[in-house]
């Protein structure tokens, strides 16, 4: 009976994904430390206390009561960041704007707009994706509500926490835009309408701000501006994420951003190698999707595709290297690929196509933190920063490498052993 209870307890722990062990103080000793903010320390230590990195260097003495972890032969990286994610948001996220309402008759009906929705208010700490990400070395995800033209405000969340509120590093870091259409439910029914709608919203927001400011000063004798939550949400979002995968879309979206004076970040980026000059000169960061475009597996073998499409696929992994060379800030994002091993494989593809490994690590750590304005708190191994770390037994991009520990807010996690790969011919096929 007792043994059963024990087993159950162990099982519960396993299911919960390795509950954090005694929080507090750690000394990671004799590790190779990839700080990202500075040169690699070939042999050094990291002191963790109260969820923060207290010290980094050689010959550090452990603080009293600290757990000392011998990291000889191990490498410590800053925790990885998924720069545009849904990890930790409920799998069934259904903020559908005007779902159920009558079709929008124009921009004034604010179609496909939930700009006021905050991802920080929707976090589900029990989502399995959180543990999967953490076991794969991701300590942080920048999560955005999805599905609408103005989809809502993103949050930076750490990949561990008992309660949703504890996971939040920053609660409103930008507005996620798509250029989708209503799908037959009124305006907008085309890309033309979606872009025009975005433009009208920003004009309206500007006017709303002005009208409110004038009314604030002179409340007598002036008509009262109507409250508009769609515009409130837009005005609360200083950073705007715009979709741009191809070169044409990059040109289109940088032009729109500069016309509307938006502080924009583009996401997609597979053809960004063609637009490095424009991106560099317009100071536009890019989030590069780690889901490279490829021919659909069930595509008609006789399908004749244009060279443009073939070239886009062929060259997509070269985009990160080209951006790095041009000095354009860029970060990687998962784009629906939820297995961290697949993500590392995709980054490796970019490295094989010319991206320096150090730049690859930066695009998974410090650069996304900087893009979202929290570079002082996460993204590198520096004293005072949040203790988000990943400890591996080798190079991050080597497929043989195993992750030994992940630290999130100073709490240590050990990944569950990976399931052995199914032998060919056995087990369920996909």
């Amino acid at each position, binding site marked *: 009976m007792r043994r059963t209870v024990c087993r159950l307890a162990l099982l519960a722990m396993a299911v919960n994904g390795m509950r954090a062990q005694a929080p507090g103080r750690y000394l990671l000793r004799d590790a190779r430390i990839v700080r990202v903010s500075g040169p690699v320390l070939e042999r050094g230590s990291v002191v963790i206390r109260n969820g923060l990195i207290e010290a980094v260097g050689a010959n550090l003495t452990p603080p009293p009561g600290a757990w000392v972890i011998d990291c000889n032969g191990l490498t410590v990286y800053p925790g990885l960041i998924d720069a545009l994610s849904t990890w930790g948001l409920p799998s069934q996220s259904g903020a559908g704007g005007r779902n159920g309402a009558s079709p929008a008759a124009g921009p004034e009906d604010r179609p496909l707009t939930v700009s006021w929705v905050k991802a920080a208010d929707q976090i589900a700490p029990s989502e399995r994706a959180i543990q999967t990400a953490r076991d794969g070395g991701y300590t942080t995800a920048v999560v955005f509500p999805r599905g609408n033209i103005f989809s809502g405000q993103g949050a930076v969340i750490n990949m561990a926490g008992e309660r949703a509120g504890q996971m939040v590093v920053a609660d409103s870091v930008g507005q996620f835009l798509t250029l989708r259409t209503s799908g037959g439910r009124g305006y907008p029914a085309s890309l*033309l309408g979606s872009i*025009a709608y975005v433009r009208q919203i920003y004009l309206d927001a500007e006017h709303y701000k002005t009208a409110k400011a004038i009314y604030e000063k002179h409340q007598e004798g002036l008509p009262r*501006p109507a409250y508009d939550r769609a515009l409130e949400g837009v005005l609360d979002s200083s950073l705007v994420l715009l979709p741009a995968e191809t070169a044409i879309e990059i040109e289109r979206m*940088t032009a729109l951003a500069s016309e509307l004076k938006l502080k924009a970040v583009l996401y997609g980026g597979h053809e960004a190698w063609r637009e490095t000059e424009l991106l560099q000169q317009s100071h536009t960061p890019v989030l590069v999707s780690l889901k490279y475009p490829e021919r659909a597996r069930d595509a008609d073998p006789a399908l004749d595709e244009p060279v443009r499409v073939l070239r886009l696929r062929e060259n997509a992994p070269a985009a990160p290297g080209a951006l790095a060379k041009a000095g354009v800030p860029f970060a990687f994002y998962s784009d629906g690929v939820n297995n961290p091993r697949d993500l590392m494989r995709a980054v490796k593809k970019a490295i094989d196509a010319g991206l320096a490994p150090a730049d690859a690590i930066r695009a998974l750590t410090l650069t996304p933190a900087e893009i979202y304005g929290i570079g002082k708190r996460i993204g590198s191994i520096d004293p005072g920063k949040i203790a988000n770390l990943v400890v591996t037994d080798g190079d991050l991009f080597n497929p043989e490498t195993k992750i030994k520990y992940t630290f999130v807010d100073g709490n240590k996690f050990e990944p569950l052993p990976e399931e052995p790969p199914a032998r*060919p011919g056995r087990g369920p096929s996909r």
Partner: protein
Amino acid sequence: MNKLTWLALVSLAPAIGADAPVIIQNATILTVTNGTVRGSILLQNGKIAAIGERVTAPEGATVIDGAGKYVMPGIIDCHSHIMADAINEGAVSVSSMVAMTDVLNPEDIAIYRALAGGVTTANILHGSANPIGGKTLVMKLRWGRNAEEMKFAGAMPGIKFALGENPKRRGNAPGGGGAPPNPANLRYPATRMGVEDVIREAFTQAKAYQASWEDYRAKTTRGELAIPPARDLKLEPLVEVLEGKRLVHAHCYRQDEILMLLHAADEFGFKIRTLQHALEAYKVAKEIADRGTGVSTFADWWDYKMEAEDAIPYNAAILTRKGVVVSINSDDPELIRHLDKEAAKAVRYGGLSETEALSLITINPAKQLLIDKQVGSLEVGKDADVLLYDGHPLSNFSKVLKVWIDGREYFDRDQDLAGRPQKQSEKKDLVDKAAAEQRPARQTP
């Protein structure tokens, strides 16, 4: 656009005139506006520098022997939907807030194919799903450049209107023929009366909007406190129409709807720049001519829908004789490749002269788009948008050999043919490589 981006775009754009001068000698030069010259034409610094029996070739000029060949101005298509990633915003009956400039696709292969058919300038229009459609613009087919660099500098912007079956076809896909219903345009209007109502209502709103700004400006000049009106992207272009700063291109077929629009425009005080298609325009040629409105029509398309039943191939010729500026347009990525042959039909039907027929696809559409100072004929000082043919352009047997825009070569038939094996092998390499990469993954059971 911020200054840096703008500077970047400018610096990316090749300086016009950076190309070596080109002289075509011993050719038959169809100027369209000043008769036929047997001699030479010189393209220099992006412009036509000289035309005459004897023109001295400047140093470094590329000399082309035009013996037996014909030279004509680049073709202008006054109605095209190429190079756009979207055509219609059909969910609303007035979609003047949308703009074709937002969805340009400078890599649309139809551009190159049009170029191979001699088209150098195209009026890129919104579709005809609604009575008042989106904002339009004029592009030069500078294949290989980005959208910004292809815009026709200085051309006045336009807007698309549409009358008749398409805007009133509630819930049906444009094109008819029993196509499945399109839920995107399940909206008013459902009749021609409704189409008129939508246009009148929109301009009534536009006038009120115009007045609200005038009122605001008056208040602020008097020093009174006022909150400015909110900018309305739907009404702004209509105010521009009222102020004569935006050209109206109206899709229409029947004489009754043509008269309706002309009268409504008279009443609201704006002009219809062109009637597009206007297959029954010959019935009301005088009313159209009186207002200085142009007609951009098909050569002989007929009976593809109810409202096209009364079309006659003499439309262009009759309107021309009645003093209307007429052009032949394509409205189609295939037809745009042989507009020269479409123009030729007006010689057969209606007896236009060869020059008049060529005018239908050159100087006339240029006049309609108010770009006739820059393009549309071979005149010294105009943009060097020039075609070289191996025979008379109106002959079915003639082909476009070369196309220049602003004096730069954008199409060369021989080069195209010679480059095909190399392009095919590049494509094969890409296909093979992709297949090889996918193969191992396919082995999983």
